[in-house]
């Protein structure tokens, strides 16, 4: 059993939009070219135009549109806020983009059960804001949390700085309502921690829209920590900074977050946000410990000592909430700050075992030099999740973009060779699907295809993503590259 190559025949063009408008109501469907332009891109670099965009009001709309698409062989591409960094929301093979922007209700903050029930279009940060009066929050905090949606977080299994100690999105989902590509509505799990049979919630989270559309989710809420200590340490170079990371974790401290940033990233952040990072440092380490008040200062002192032992020239501890927010604003605003240095950037998020950090950062530097590209690094060091930002200018034409992607590929190849992964939180999407055979053998991919076919036998859900597709990956022949 294999996943069908994407459906290319079927209803397309303005006729598709008109038919959907009469099915669902004209206010829920966009199909004029000028309206579709907004949905051609997401947070990554690829683009494609949908034939129509649907903005459903609820589960019933989603089920009707899925039944229609299934009858007329139309690809379905779910979309949250379009902040994704792997092209997950791009309609490679045309069809319908389903925007969940209007399904943005929080149905319930169930403090007694430490759960929230929400629609997929709710913005990540809004859930934590709604839960705060109960002393609770939703843990996953991707840098885009002011814009990205919970549905997108579930689809991509999103992370964030604070998932080091508390787990990524999949650790915080207990129930889902999903509409399958044939229009079937299925409810999986619920407010309890587990259900009988296979863990379909766990299998679904991170499926990048290829298994179905989430229409409602039950999420874990976590008590807010009583207190925090946020530490910023400046190092002469990234080697020392990354060795300090390993030493902190090796000392038995599991901070809520440990982030690293190199000099180029610092330069951009300081210009944009003014977070107070020393500009002359080769590497900035940001660490946070949280929990009950007792023991926090002891952990903070140990982190400070380790940083100094590893050559830190400055160590600063945030003393007020404002201080802490300023330190974090620099980290969370780092991607946006790149605009100070470059018109465009290309970011990847390969993962490596933590102990390989110094070696892989040297390799990134070397790749940058060989390709003549500037690469900034700002990343989740605690879990080995790199974020090399390759700076370039799209207006220089497709050759420059290709060179950038080649450089990115070399970095990913090294991550996988070091026993790591192609992606830690951004997803495979259409950006890395051709690279999947680097990390997975034929038996592994066949097993994934079995899972896919069980949910979406027709192959209508987000085609051209996650799996290598013969049509798009033909020119990218891994075996040829290797020889």
């Amino acid at each position, binding site marked *: 059993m294999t996943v069908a190559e994407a459906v290319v025949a079927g209803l397309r063009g303005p006729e598709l939009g008109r038919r959907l408008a009469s099915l669902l109501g004209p206010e829920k469907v966009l199909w004029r070219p000028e309206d579709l332009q907004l949905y051609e891109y997401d947070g990554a670099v690829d683009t494609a135009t949908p034939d129509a965009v649907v903005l459903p009001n609820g589960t019933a709309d989603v089920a009707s549109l899925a039944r229609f698409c299934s009858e007329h062989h139309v690809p379905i591409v779910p979309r949250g806020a379009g902040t994704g960094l792997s092209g997950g929301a791009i309609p490679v093979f045309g069809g319908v983009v389903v925007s969940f922007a209007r399904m943005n209700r929080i149905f319930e903050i169930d403090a007694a059960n430490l759960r929230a029930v929400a629609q997929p279009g709710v913005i990540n940060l809004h859930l934590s804001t709604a839960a705060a009066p109960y002393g609770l929050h939703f843990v996953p905090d991707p840098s885009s949390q002011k814009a990205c949606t919970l549905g997108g977080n579930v689809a991509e299994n999103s992370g964030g700085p604070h*998932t080091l100690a508390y787990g990524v999105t999949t650790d915080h989902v207990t129930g889902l309502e999903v509409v399958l590509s044939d229009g079937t509505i299925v409810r999986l799990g619920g407010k309890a921690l587990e259900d009988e*049979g296979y863990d379909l919630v766990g299998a679904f989270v991170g499926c990048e829209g290829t298994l179905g559309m989430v229409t409602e989710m039950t999420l874990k809420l976590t008590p807010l920590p009583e207190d925090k200590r946020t530490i910023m340490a400046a190092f002469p170079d990234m080697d020392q900074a990354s060795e300090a990371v390993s030493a902190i974790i090796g000392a038995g401290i599991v901070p809520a977050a440990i982030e690293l940033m190199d000099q180029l990233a610092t330069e951009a952040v300081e210009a944009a946000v003014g977070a107070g990072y020393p500009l002359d440092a080769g590497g900035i380490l940001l660490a946070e410990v949280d929990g009950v008040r007792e023991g926090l200062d002891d952990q903070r002192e140990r982190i400070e000592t380790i940083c100094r032992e590893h050559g830190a020239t400055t160590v600063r501890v945030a003393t007020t909430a404002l201080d802490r927010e300023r330190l974090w604003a620099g980290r969370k605003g780092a991607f946006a700050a790149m605009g100070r240095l470059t018109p465009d950037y290309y970011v990847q998020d390969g993962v490596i075992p*933590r102990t390989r950090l110094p070696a892989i950062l040297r390799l990134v530097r070397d790749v940058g030099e060989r390709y003549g590209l500037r690469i900034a690094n700002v990343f989740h060091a605690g879990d080995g999740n790199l974020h090399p930002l390759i700076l370039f200018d799209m207006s220089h034409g497709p050759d420059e973009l290709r060179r950038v992607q080649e450089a990115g590929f070399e970095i990913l190849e090294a991550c996988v060779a070091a026993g790591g992964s192609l992606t830690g939180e951004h997803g*495979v999407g259409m950006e890395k699907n051709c690279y999947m055979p680097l990390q997975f053998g034929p*038996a592994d991919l066949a097993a994934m295809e079995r899972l896919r076919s*069980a949910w979406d036998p027709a192959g209508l859900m987000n085609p051209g993503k996650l799996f290598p597709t013969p049509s798009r990956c033909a020119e990218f022949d891994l075996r040829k590259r290797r020889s």
Partner: protein
Amino acid sequence: MTSPALRPADAAACAVALAEAARDGRTVRVRGAGTKSYLGELVGTDSVLETTAIAGIVDHVPADLTVTVRAGTSFADLQAALRERGQFLPLDPPHADGATLGGIVAANSNGFSRLRYGGVRHLLIGTVAALVDGTVMRAGGRVVKNVAGYDLNKLLIGSLGTLGVVTETTWKVLPLPKARALTVARCATAADAFAIADALVRTPLRPSALVVDGTRRAWAAIVAAQGEPAAVGRAMDEAGRAAARGGARSDRTDDDEQVLAPLRDLPGTATDGALVRASLPLAAQASFVAAALGLEPFARCVADAGSGIVRIHLRGDDGAVLRAADTLMAGARSVGCSARVERRDDALRDRLASWGPAPGGDFLMRRIREAFDPARTLEPARSIVR
């Protein structure tokens, strides 16, 4: 029903053995150390495949806080090896002295510490599994964060051997906690004990166990903590205060294992009557326990109150046990939760099914089963997914 044992030495040999069985139309039971051989529906199979020869630690990188270990390795052996390097796998499953890691994954076998450390679902980051088509599948990897492709680890956890045979596992591990302690609060009623647990679950204390234990006559709320000494001390103080607010007397000990081990091992010791295990929203636990005691006054209850996992050991006469078990399973499903008969006396086996009503998405589970094991070679009847 003595069936010949297959003891493959590695994943490849395991896959060959499975493919041969599938080709010949033979059915296979999968067995680690056999500590949980009471679980699920057990029909005779043509052969038993034992994983115990696929054993040993493959790789432990202390600085990465990860360990890769073959599935037939015993949990106790792994913990002993990790302890030598000052680390541990933060799982506390029942049968900890005998169980294999493969069995722990296949049965999603957790203890009370999942409240703090996340359990199998959170700690397992990579698996290798032999499939009935003769291939060997790798899922996840050796890094703690990984979203490349589907998370097939999740599919294997709790699959009871119905999709493939887990041959290797990779886990997140942690440094051994510096301090540990436990407080027991003696309560008059189950409601009092649950109230203490509830007060603590919504604090930032992150207890390593939050247990309610009792019978009709006596109840206890048990609070354990591990980690930084100051934080552990604070958790114990708060536990004592919560107990005092509820009018309960409390005692503190540093020997948490002495209290927790027998509670955790209830599935191992509950050989008579029936042991019903429910997974519930936190706030539903107290009323579920009250309902159970209404149905069967001799029942014992052990609730992992921070995770909503409630075990009811029904010990009355057969008729009462059967009625209570059926009612509790149907009742759990009717409020959107699940319950199973985890264990029952052999004499009740034919009259009491393991599984309650089907979970949501059961048709998807059957399709997945069909895709991985179309001939139903593996554990043909054991799981709720047939």
